[in-house]
């Protein structure tokens, strides 16, 4: 059987708005991916531990609280400490455009702002999985 892309979709930090994360998780499922949804209020450590145990290809984090510059670096560091160098990291939510380059320089693979189409998100998540894990994806 062909390898399916496995994605963790998590809500990071103190932020109760999960509609967006659920919509994304469903869209990725409908695109044929296996999505592990962690639910609300996850710490960076919980998210990384989940990615380790699930052998995830990509971690997708949703954050609308404005704490992304505080919390995302903690995920990146925890991933590095755990040896998850080949796991993709994508971040979506209410993020000021000027923070995109900051996040990317920390090691985030893709940043999705409000209004990003589902097709684009699916394509970019697939390509991150392809780039980081060498999974072939037919689109």
């Amino acid at each position, binding site marked *: *059987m062909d*390898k*399916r892309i496995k994605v963790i979709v998590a809500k990071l930090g103190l932020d109760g708005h999960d509609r967006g994360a659920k919509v994304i*998780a*469903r869209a*990725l*499922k*409908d*695109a*044929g*991916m*296996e*999505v*592990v*949804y*962690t*639910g609300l209020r*996850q710490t960076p*450590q*919980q998210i990384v*531990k*989940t990615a*380790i*145990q*699930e*052998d995830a290809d990509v971690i997708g984090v949703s954050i609308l609280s404005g704490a992304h510059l505080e919390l995302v670096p903690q995920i990146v560091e925890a991933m590095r400490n*755990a*040896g*998850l160098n080949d796991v993709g990291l994508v971040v979506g939510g209410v993020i000021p455009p000027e923070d995109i380059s900051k996040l990317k320089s920390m090691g985030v693979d893709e940043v999705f702002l409000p209004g990003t189409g589902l097709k684009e998100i699916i394509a970019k998540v697939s390509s991150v999985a392809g780039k980081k894990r060498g999974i072939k994806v037919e689109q």
Partner: protein
Amino acid sequence: MPERKEVSRLNNELLKKALSGDELAISKVLTNIEYTTSDGLKYLQELTKLSGKAHTIGVTGIPGAGKSTLLSDLIETYVSKGFRVGVIMIDPSSPISMGSFMGNRIRMQDKTLLSNVFIRSTASRGHLGGFSSEALMLMEAMDGLGFDRILVETVGAGQTDTDVMSSVHSVVVLTIPGAGDEIQALKAGIMEIGDIYVVNKADRPEADMVYDAVRFAVESGEMSWRDGWKPLVLKVSALKKVGIGELVDALEIHSEFLKKKGLFETRVNSRRRKMIELILRRKVNEVVTRVLESNSAYISEMLVKGELATLIDSLYSSVKDEL
């Protein structure tokens, strides 16, 4: 021969690391196994030589019965007793996209950071029956990797999803108030496979009625006793963590019963047979899917002509040829 076995194990860094408890290595080994890569099959073979010690527990019941929440409570109790716990959760794959939305972890994310717990989600990937070859392989592997208790949550089960029975030592069937009258308790299928029946959401007023109905079914002998074990019936409130200690005690009693009767090993063997059966069914199923896809136009044509018998014959021989 044992010498060769030792060498092959020592030569494999990843398996060695997994056996020493490294979580990322465990995870990679499990992925190789669930996708039956050539390395994966070697790992599975090695780990099967070491497995057979864990008490394996399946939790089944209709969607929304509280399986994940109960699992979360069981994890907590087992860890506090000093056990190393492996958890496998099966969620359905979409028959349309083959993708899966696996949300069982939500109920137990607060257990993620405990050090003696390894939780793995797996999609059903077309398997019916509530269980999958992947879940059985993961279970065998976790057993070989030294987990003491392995908890498996089946896909939210209907009335005939009974594969769990031949896959684990102890089957916990979860039922809830409001899921039907006593006739449901007497029906064949999921209500005859439990070693332990748990009425969850016992804080609800109608819980006693369900409890009485299930107990009556057990006491009156309407419900089958597997291998001489009289099923236990318990009331639990998973959300409020009431009755969990009693459930764990009941599971220990069942495990002791199996060991005393020499059935513990028997069930390990029957789950291995089930694993082989499901792996083979998956392979055959893939052939059937391929034949159906490649004959799509022919099928339409023959259906229009009304040549049903010829169609089935010819598709069946294509399947046999491919096999």
